[in-house]
């Protein structure tokens, strides 16, 4: 997904185009394999993850999610996960990986490495902001049945699941606005916030891979 390619900032040069990126990634990994782990102070290029911005203003989801909540949820929680991951990358074998590869590798078949939590949280929160839009919600056109699965999506990705929407049920996502009333938060998300445009795009993309006979649908 172009959004994630741009999330990987390479300093000081501008981010590469998505088309060029797969080539660069392969080169980076084979150089590391040839020369082994290079201490950071000798590297000329430092690549870290950046915090992507929600595709709407911070108050745009009111009254269903307050500006204050989005400020905290995005500006503190999501930002902290990005910063935490970047701190780990300074000394991690996953330096230079795409976010999706890093999550898959760090998941380590159910025995997650330290980077997994931060990386998965970064991914989940980016996916969440994009799953919503102002004036969203209501019934989708051309209903398809969606399968709801809590929590560890990445553990199930190996079983051929492709995420379409996610809803953050951590208390920080709704407590300021709804206190303990999670039910109303979920109802408002479905009725007023779900971005069916994004859902349609994601489903079309996933179906395109299915139609091509691809055994694995890339997650993003």
């Amino acid at each position: 997904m172009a959004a994630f390619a741009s999330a990987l900032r390479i300093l000081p040069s501008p981010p590469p185009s998505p088309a060029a990126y797969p080539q660069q990634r392969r080169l980076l990994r084979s150089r590391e394999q040839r020369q082994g782990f290079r201490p950071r102070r000798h590297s000329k290029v430092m690549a870290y993850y950046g915090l992507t911005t929600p595709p709407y203003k911070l108050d745009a989801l009111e009254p269903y999610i307050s500006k204050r909540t989005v400020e905290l949820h995005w500006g503190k929680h999501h930002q902290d996960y990005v910063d935490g991951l970047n701190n780990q990358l300074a000394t991690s074998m996953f330096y230079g990986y795409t976010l999706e590869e890093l999550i898959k590798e760090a998941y380590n078949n159910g025995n997650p490495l330290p980077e997994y939590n931060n990386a998965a949280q970064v991914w989940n929160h980016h996916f969440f902001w994009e799953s919503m839009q102002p004036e969203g919600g209501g019934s989708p056109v051309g209903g398809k049945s969606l399968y709801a699965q809590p929590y560890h999506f990445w553990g199930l990705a190996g079983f051929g699941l492709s995420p379409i929407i996610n809803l953050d049920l951590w208390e920080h996502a709704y407590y300021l606005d709804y206190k303990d009333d999670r039910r109303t938060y979920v109802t408002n998300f479905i009725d007023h916030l779900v971005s069916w445009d994004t859902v349609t795009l994601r489903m079309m993309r996933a179906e395109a891979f299915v139609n091509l006979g691809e055994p694995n649908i890339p997650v993003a």
Partner: protein
Amino acid sequence: MALRTLASRKTLAAASAAARPLASAAASRGVTTVSLPDLPYDYGALEPAISGEIMRLHHSKHHATYVANYNKALEQLDSAVSKGDAPAVVHLQSAIKFNGGGHVNHSIFWNNLKPISEGGGEPPHGKLGWAIDEDFGSFEALVKKMNAEGAALQGSGWVWLALDKEAKKLSVETTANQDPLVTKGANLVPLLGIDVWEHAYYLQYKNVRPDYLSNIWKVMNWKYAGEVYENAAP
């Protein structure tokens, strides 16, 4: 020991009115239900360490829901057991663990806290004080360790000061979600528990869990912890 006391207490003046009709219906079938224990202090009594709004929601909403759902699960379990419906019995286990654990943990938690005016925050003396020095080096070292483990806990859970009553040793443990301390070891007795679910602090401390942790010690009821310790390891 504390759990047995709680489970058999059927106070007629239960704070949760919802539990009462269920309790009487279930009791007629022999299911002993639980009820929401009263707080030993006012909702606002732990300020400024923990706000009155949080205490009110935490006790009258969150804990009350655990009680109601636990009672419902117990009733369903009783029915499933009598019908010999094994799949249903197994299916109910997660609801029992979660809601029962929530009830157990929070009942301990309310006793772990005390208003400053009534002695909250006073460091432990006597046997527990010496045991802490022996097992952690100092009181400050224990607090630092519990704060670190509480802050590092991913997601929702609890951080405990535990006593292994067989080994007669103190330790700091964490449990996930509403798992009670016994899930970490059958011999473990909870002396103190700190709820690090976001609902325990978010309205006041927002995302800054470490501030909540450093402030909660001001209302910690070490006297209660000392009594539990001396009863469990005389």
